């Protein structure tokens, strides 16, 4: 625990986020949505001129970006541009060398790991499997909220989340015996029961087939809309990102090249960032990026 002042702040922040999280609870759902429209302009998580370096190599330079409630933000850009690094800075898995991350009004660097985890959930790109059941793996998401004992409330949340994710029938299967797509779903489910207001996903669709990609992104969209939280995810598949995200951050050389919405994604932009010529065509009112032959 940090000093008294910080502690007070943290407690406040926790209560605040808890209120938001209550949207899990059906009764507060409608209210949550009014809240969303009123409050939409307020950034939920904000990175303010974040810098990061591995040794001498500067990976992130002056990154400023934010995400609001009900929003999915996609971080895009070529391999090795620092997308995952930025994502890890956003919940202090990597400590930024400069700049600040705010959740609401709170500076993340002044919060304990546990308090950060109560507000920000993280799903890694690759997930380790162990001889644990799906149920217990998801229950692990309650870790930041757990005392010595698991409460009935914790179990309730896990049961609900498992049902929502279509995992109830396989809750007692060991995660070292399920497929990669199922494990991915379990890990997202684990982050959901963590009750975060911001969800960080590192390439949630990598190594999944087309139908699994759709499935997991629909679930994420559903969670963001229903719980009125926010999601930041790194992606390689531009068309999937265009379909499911609201806001797009294009990174180039460790810097932000452009932040835009769906309409801002032009062939010129893609060529600047990825260095290949593309057409952006419209298919059922949805832009699709197609590389030129």
């Amino acid at each position, binding site marked *: 625990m940090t000093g008294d002042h910080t502690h007070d702040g943290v407690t406040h922040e926790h209560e605040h986020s808890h209120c938001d999280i209550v949207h899990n609870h*059906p009764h507060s*759902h*409608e209210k949550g949505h009014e809240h969303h429209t009123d409050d939409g302009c307020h950034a939920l998580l904000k990175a303010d001129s974040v810098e990061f370096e591995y040794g001498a190599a500067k990976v992130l330079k002056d990154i400023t970006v934010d995400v609001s409630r009900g929003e999915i933000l996609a971080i895009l850009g070529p391999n090795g541009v620092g997308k995952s690094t930025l994502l*890890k800075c956003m*919940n*202090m*898995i990597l400590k930024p060398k400069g700049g600040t991350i705010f959740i609401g009004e709170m500076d993340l660097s002044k919060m*304990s*790991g*546990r308090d*950060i*985890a*109560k507000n*920000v*959930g*993280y*799903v*890694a790109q*690759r*997930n*380790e499997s*162990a*001889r*644990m*059941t799906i*149920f*217990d*793996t998801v229950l*692990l*998401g309650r*870790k*930041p909220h757990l005392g*010595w004992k698991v409460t009935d409330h914790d*179990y309730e949340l896990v*049961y*609900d989340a*498992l*049902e*929502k*994710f*279509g995992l*109830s029938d396989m*809750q*007692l299967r*060991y995660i070292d015996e399920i497929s990669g797509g199922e494990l991915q779903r379990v*890990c997202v489910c684990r982050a959901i029961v*963590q009750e975060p207001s911001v969800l960080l996903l590192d390439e949630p669709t990598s190594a999944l087939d087309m*139908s699994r990609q*759709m*499935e997991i992104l*629909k679930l994420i*969209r*559903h969670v963001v*809309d*229903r719980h009125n939280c926010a999601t930041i995810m790194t992606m390689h598949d531009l068309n999937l990102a265009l*379909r*499911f995200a609201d806001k797009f951050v294009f990174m180039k050389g460790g810097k932000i090249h452009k932040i835009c919405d769906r309409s801002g994604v032009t062939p010129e932009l893609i060529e600047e960032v990825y260095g290949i010529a593309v057409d952006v065509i419209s298919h*059922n*009112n*949805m832009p699709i990026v197609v590389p030129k032959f």
Partner: protein
Amino acid sequence: MTTEEKNEEINRTEDPVENNTEDKVEMKTEDPVDDNTEDKVKEKTEDPVGEKTEGMVEDYKSYVGKKYTAIFLGIAVTVAMFLVSISVGSVSIPIPDVISTIMGGPGGTSLIERVIWNIRIPQALTAIAAGAGLAVAGVAMQSVLRNPLASPFTLGLSNAAAFGAAVGILIFDAGMTGSNMVDAVVINNPYLTTGMAFILSMLTTVIILAITKIRGATPETMVLAGVAISSLFAAGLMAVQYFVDDTRLASIVFWQFGDVARASWSELGLITLVVVICALYVFYKRWDYNAVDAGEETAMGLGVNVERTRIMGMVAASLISAIVVSFLGIIGFVGLVCPHMMRRIVGDDHRFLIPATLICGSLLLLVADTVARTIIAPHILPVAVLTAFLGAPVFIYIIIKGRRI
């Protein structure tokens, strides 16, 4: 949940692609998850009690119940083995007499009462405490280093502690040396001896953590580091042996054979105290270990301070190794084998793995000691000889089969 809210939920799901009729159709016909969600909503609305959830709860409870049953079964077998262990030996005592003597409390004057209270019970309890301690140290090390081959013995902690204790006993006169196996070394300053052993095993811990930090805790790195560290301290021990006189040389050699017969009641008390404190700490951290199992970054995302968990887990393991080695000598393989046996039975969930491993360690060392005392009667083997015979093949098996034995 009311129907209205559920409907709203469905609408929300479709929101992002609302303008897209084709998509909507696709979603309803092809997407399994959304279908599921909707089906379940319908199910639930028709059936407000939520029988599905009810069934899930039952399933999970019965699953957890099975784990607890396995653990309690282990405790029962250990208690039974405790009685058997007390009853067998050079003087065979029928189990009813054993029970009545234990019920009667200490202080009896008959031969049997004295044998039971002064020799057999301390020895059996020492086996239980030391076995539990070594097993818990093993499971903690395997978890925090994320390495299936970690244990106090394989990573050289035991050898380091032995060297430290030997230095304490022989150079700083913290112990008196005797000429037979049971009295090979009488430690008259347990704090100095254990302290020396602890300092050396902590030094080893620092080396291991440094290697982990630089090279990562892969099985290969850890085994090589273990070989290096073990031979370093074996060399140190050899040097000490080279310079001492014959009597001390003999006694230090005897002392190295791990044997649970050495501990008296007061030493047993000290071992138990350290083991209980460390085991409680490790059990308290069970969720942290589960989180670390899921990957370091995931654990950090769940608010676990991985670095601190790792260091504290290693300190607890070092403390246990130091106290056990100081009083009983080197007992190998219990810390390596027990977690693997229990992973097979109760899985990797540390909520069950830690207590199960603890009991497994107690039972294994108790059985090993009982067998060692009787297998070539009237001669008595030190228990470490037996655990090594048992452990080496299992160790090789783990190397061949990979993590899950």
